[in-house]
C-alpha cells in the first residue's frame, strides 16, 4: 500500500516536526517540579507540571552541573530549553538548558536578552578587556557604606598591603536608584587621576537584591570607564551583567580586594633579593677589576725594577770608566814616573831632597831611589834622581 510508513519513519517524521518548530526549539516554561531523579550518569530527570498538565524533562549532566540551587519536589521554576523526542520510545520531553527558581522568571528573561544584546555589541569582548595593574598605588571602591563587603575589602587590602591607598566612592547597591547611583559613583572616581583600578562590589544577596548590577546603563558605563574595573558581586555562583562587561570578574568582594593587593611581604622580599643580587654582582665586578689593576701594578713594578737594575748597570759602567780614567797608575803606562815615600807621593823636588830616599814607581814596577841635589843647574828633568833598579814585583800594579 502506498504511503505506508514504518514505525521508525513515523517517529523520525514527528521528531523532525518538533525539531524544526521555532517555538519548540527554544522556549521558556514555568511550572512545578516533581519526580526528581538524578541518574548515576549524572543526568537529571524530572517532571514539570501545573494544575492540569505535565511534561517530562531532562537536564543533562553538562548543564545541571552549573545549577546554582538544588532541585526539589514542589519547587516552582522557569526552565529554558527545547522540546525533542527521545528516539526509541517516541516520548517527547523538554531538554532543559537552564533552570531558575521562580519569581525571577521575568527578570531572568530580561537578563538573558540584555546579555545577548550587549554581547553582540561587543561589550564582553575579551580583546577590549584591560589588564589589571599588579600593584596599584590607589584603588577605588564603589559599594555601599552599609554593607559588610566594604569592611571586608578594606581589611583585606590593609592587611595584605598597607601601601595601597583606598578611595571609596559610596553608592547604594540595591533598590530602584542603585543603578543611577552606581554609575554616578563610578564617574566620580574617574576624576581622580591617581585611581588605578576600581572595585565594583556588593556582598551576597538574593537575585533581586543583586539586580542593580544587571542594569544596561551601568554596563555601558563600565564599558567606557577610563579605569579598569573589577566586579565582585554576590557569591561565587552569582553572575551579573556587570561581571561580563568588567575587565575582570572576581567571585566575591574579598576576592576582588585580593586581586589588587599583592602581599607586601612578598614584594619586600623580592626587592631585597634583587638588591642583594645587584650589590653582589657589582662587588664581583669591582673585585675583578681590582684584581686586574693589581696584576697591572705588579707588572709595572716588575718592569720598573728591571729598568732600575739596568740603569744601575749603566751607571756602574760609567763610574768604572771614570774611575779608570782617574787611576793614577794608568798615567804611568804613558811613561810618567811617580815618586813616593812610605806610600805617600812626593810631589816636589824640595820634598824629595828632604826625604833623601824613596821609591820610584813605574808602570812595570818600583825601584828604590836616593834623592840628591844636582851640583849643576843644567840637566834633564831627572836631575835629582840617582838610583838602582830593585826588581820589584810588577803585580803590585
Amino acid at each position, binding site marked *: 500500500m502506498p504511503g505506508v510508513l514504518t514505525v521508525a519513519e513515523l517517529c523520525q517524521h514527528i521528531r523532525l516536526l518538533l525539531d524544526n518548530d521555532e517555538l519548540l526549539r527554544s522556549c521558556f516554561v514555568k511550572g512545578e517540579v516533581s519526580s526528581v531523579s538524578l541518574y548515576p550518569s549524572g543526568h537529571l530527570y524530572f517532571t514539570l507540571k501545573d494544575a492540569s498538565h505535565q511534561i517530562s524533562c531532562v537536564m543533562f549532566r553538562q548543564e545541571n552541573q552549573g545549577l546554582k540551587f538544588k532541585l526539589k519536589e514542589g519547587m516552582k521554576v522557569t526552565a529554558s530549553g527545547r522540546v525533542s523526542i527521545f528516539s526509541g520510545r517516541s516520548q517527547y520531553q523538554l531538554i532543559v538548558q537552564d533552570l531558575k527558581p521562580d519569581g525571577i522568571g521575568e527578570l531572568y528573561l530580561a537578563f538573558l536578552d540584555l546579555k545577548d544584546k550587549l554581547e553582540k555589541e561587543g561589550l564582553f569582548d575579551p580583546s577590549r578587556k584591560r589588564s589589571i*595593574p*599588579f*600593584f596599584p*598605588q590607589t584603588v577605588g571602591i564603589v559599594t555601599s*557604606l*552599609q554593607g559588610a563587603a*566594604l*569592611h571586608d575589602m*578594606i*581589611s583585606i587590602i*590593609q592587611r595584605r598591603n*598597607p*601601601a*595601597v*591607598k*583606598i*578611595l*571609596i*566612592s*559610596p553608592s547604594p547597591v540595591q533598590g530602584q536608584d542603585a543603578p543611577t547611583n552606581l554609575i554616578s*559613583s563610578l564617574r*566620580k*572616581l574617574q*576624576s*581622580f587621576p591617581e585611581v588605578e583600578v576600581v572595585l565594583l562590589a556588593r556582598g551576597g544577596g538574593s537575585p533581586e537584591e543583586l539586580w542593580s548590577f544587571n542594569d544596561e546603563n551601568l554596563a555601558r558605563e563600565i564599558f567606557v570607564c577610563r579605569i579598569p574595573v573589577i566586579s565582585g558581586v554576590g557569591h561565587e555562583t552569582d553572575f551579573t551583567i556587570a561581571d561580563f562587561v568588567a575587565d575582570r570578574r572576581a567571585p566575591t568582594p574579598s576576592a576582588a580586594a585580593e586581586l589588587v593587593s599583592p602581599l*607586601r611581604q612578598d*614584594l*619586600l622580599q*623580592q*626587592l631585597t633579593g*634583587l*638588591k642583594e*643580587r*645587584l650589590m653582589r*654582582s*657589582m662587588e*664581583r*665586578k669591582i673585585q*675583578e*677589576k681590582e684584581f686586574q689593576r693589581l696584576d697591572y701594578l705588579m707588572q709595572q713594578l716588575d718592569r720598573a725594577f728591571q729598568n732600575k737594575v739596568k740603569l744601575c748597570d749603566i751607571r756602574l759602567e760609567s763610574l768604572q770608566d771614570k774611575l779608570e780614567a782617574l787611576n793614577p797608575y794608568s798615567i804611568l803606562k804613558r811613561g810618567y814616573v811617580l815618586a813616593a815615600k812610605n806610600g805617600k807621593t812626593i810631589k816636589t823636588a824640595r820634598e824629595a831632597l828632604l826625604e833623601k830616599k824613596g821609591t820610584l814607581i813605574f808602570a812595570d814596577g818600583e825601584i828604590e831611589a836616593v834623592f840628591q841635589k844636582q851640583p849643576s843647574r843644567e840637566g834633564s828633568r831627572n836631575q835629582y834622581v840617582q838610583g838602582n833598579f830593585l826588581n820589584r814585583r810588577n803585580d803590585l800594579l
Partner: protein
Amino acid sequence: MSELSYETCIEKLEELVKKLESGDLPLEESLQAYEKGKQLIAYCSEKLKEAQGKLQIVIQKENGSLESAPFQLDKI
C-alpha cells in the same frame, strides 16, 4: 620615572641584575647599570612604604566639585 608601574620597574630591575650577573658588561656600563638599579630599588621601596592617609572617601561639595576626605572604617 613616575609613570612607571611597580611591575615594570621590577622587570627592568631583573633585567639589569641579570646583565650585571652575566659579567659581560664593561666596568663603565656596569656602574651605570648599578646606579640605575639603585634608583629603581629606591623607587620601588618608596612605593612599598605604608601609605599615609590610606583610607579616603569621595565627597561632592555644594558647588559640585569633588574632593577626597579621610575616612574611618568605624564610622560605618
